[in-house]
């Protein structure tokens, strides 16, 4: 896929058409053309590169730098260098351990419940049924709502007295199950997960649907002719072929959990007593509320390293066979 620079091509053509004419593309000429080609490339590439470098790459470097200081963020740049003290303090902190634990619980719930639910639903909706398009439209709709709007709506639904959840329990005679869902450390994570599922399972369903449609139906038919039951077809034909999509969905789920903030911030603020806190929430608390910028930067750095380790390991060991995209809905002409 290596095209020569645009400007060179017509010359090449005419040259080829006119046969070998010695001396025409002189060295100086060629160099000038090459330079002009490079200038064109730079013109097209630089604006994006500058923006990306300044606002995406530089912040990591800044975070890495400021994480080595004790700094309240006021005035100029930090001066009180303390080495890795912020990190030792972080790794010893119970809140941080809680963040990691909560993240793992959410990932486990997502991979164990949310993704299988989305996959099952995608396979069902892939069958011919009345109203399928409406269901698809409906299940995906929460994805376009912002996490904040979702969070505020559900904080009212899960509120102890007038909330819809407890009202339903009361109406069907299950008063003893009533909870202050978001204020009880034992229910806050499941409640948070319920809201995440409401908002995101449609997204994963759409991914799986797209992946499913990329599998030729002849394969399933062939398996059926060979006597495979519906379950066996799923287990030995559909699921392996959906592998790349499943792996990407799991990847997105983990990366999303590492940076989970909006929903938690609006629903619980991380409470009660840090029971639903995530790394991003802890970082925000220290960085923006308590102005311990150095310490908060250390959290950012840890978040970055965790996601990079995860991403690289995942690409290396889990997705290495999936060289290309798992589904080809549009534009995948590479």
């Amino acid at each position: 896929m290596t095209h020569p620079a645009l400007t060179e091509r017509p010359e090449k053509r005419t040259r080829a058409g006119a046969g070998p004419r010695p001396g025409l593309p002189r060295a100086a000429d060629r160099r000038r053309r090459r330079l002009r080609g490079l200038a064109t490339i730079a013109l097209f590439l630089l604006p994006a590169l500058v923006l990306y470098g300044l606002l995406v790459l530089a912040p990591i470097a800044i975070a890495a730098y400021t994480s080595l200081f004790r700094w309240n963020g006021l005035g100029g740049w930090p001066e009180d260098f303390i080495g890795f003290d912020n990190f030792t303090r972080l790794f010893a902190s119970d809140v941080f351990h809680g963040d990691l634990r909560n993240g793992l619980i959410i990932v486990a719930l997502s991979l164990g419940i949310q993704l299988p639910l989305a996959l099952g639903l995608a396979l069902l909706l892939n069958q011919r049924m009345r109203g399928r398009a409406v269901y698809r439209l409906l299940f995906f709709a929460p994805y376009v709502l912002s996490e904040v709007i979702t969070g505020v709506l559900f904080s009212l639904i899960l509120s102890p007295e007038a909330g819809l959840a407890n009202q339903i329990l009361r109406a069907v005679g299950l008063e003893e199950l009533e909870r202050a869902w978001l204020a009880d450390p034992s229910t806050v994570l499941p409640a948070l997960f319920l809201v995440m599922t409401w908002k995101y399972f449609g997204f994963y369903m759409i991914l799986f649907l797209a992946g499913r449609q990329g599998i030729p139906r002849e394969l399933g038919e062939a398996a059926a002719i060979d006597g495979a039951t519906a379950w066996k077809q799923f287990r030995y034909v559909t699921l392996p072929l959906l592998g790349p999509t499943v792996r990407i969905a799991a990847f997105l789920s983990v990366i999303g959990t590492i940076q989970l903030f909006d929903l938690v911030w609006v629903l619980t603020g991380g409470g009660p007593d840090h029971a639903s806190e995530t790394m991003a929430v802890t970082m925000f608390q220290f960085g923006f509320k308590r102005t311990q910028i150095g310490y908060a930067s250390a959290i950012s750095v840890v978040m970055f390293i965790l996601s990079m380790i995860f991403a690289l390991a995942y690409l290396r060991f889990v997705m290495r066979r999936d060289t290309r995209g798992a589904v080809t809905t549009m534009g995948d002409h590479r």
Partner: protein
Amino acid sequence: MSSPVSNPAPGPASHPAPSRRADGRGPDRRRADGRPDRRRPAGPSRAKGISLHLLAVTLAVFILAPLLFGLIGGFKDNAQLAANPFGLPAPWHPENYTEVLGSASFWRQVGNSVLIALATTVLVVGLSAMAAFAFARFAFRGREVLFTIFTAGLMFPFAVAILPLFVLMRAFGLLDNPLGVILVQAAFGLPMTIIILRGFFAAVPREVEEAAVIDGCTPFGVFWRVLLPMARPALATVSVLAIVASWNNFFLPLAVFNDPDWWTIPLGVQQFQGQYSTDVARTLAYVVLAMVPALAFYAVAERHLISGLTAGATKG
């Protein structure tokens, strides 16, 4: 080949599922049309169809109930919400909605959200199209390395950058300035947009561009007059993605905007809940009204959104 009737395997009843899968779109529909026998489900699969519907309806209720609770709850007052959570309002109280719609701050937030979303989209799509053009149509040293650096941004949690970005924006004097949000959103939108557009540009046959060059087009002319018009569907898709991402962004505006005059809808919703924490009905009305633009946009752009998400998610 495997219609229940002609199936040579243990009998149609044991596996009725595989064959009835005529997709709504794509080549499958044509196949199903060609075989009318598929369209008439046999007995056992009808029972299966009913349980399938049951499941779908259950999930639909799960999705819809919170939305309806919000919509209808907004027409109640708080006493009604407590005493009569499920029924229709009696009497209806449209005041909650009309008061929000009559408030200047709500419209101000809508305007801010629109402005920021549009500016972000124009910027990210414009810069990405240019970069994608360079990546797709030119060969130069370091191209793959640069492209990999851009794609690495996909795995990059935005939350990592928020604090240093705040420090940077403060240094640039861009706090309480919409540019502080627009530029950052555009920067973080680059990886996905470039990947999708590069795939599209690379697929345009080279003959098209050679013809343009022979007709006297400069590289810029090729980009502007040939490739961009051809890429209209892809541009629409990435624009929809950018608009939705910007519209729903909360973390960045939360860090950048202190001044309520610049608040976007998500900030406004969160603030409103804090301010009227005891007035549930009014908050519900606000939340429902805040949902309307996103849902309306979804209704219009659903196809672009879904194709963009599935293409983008699977190409990192």
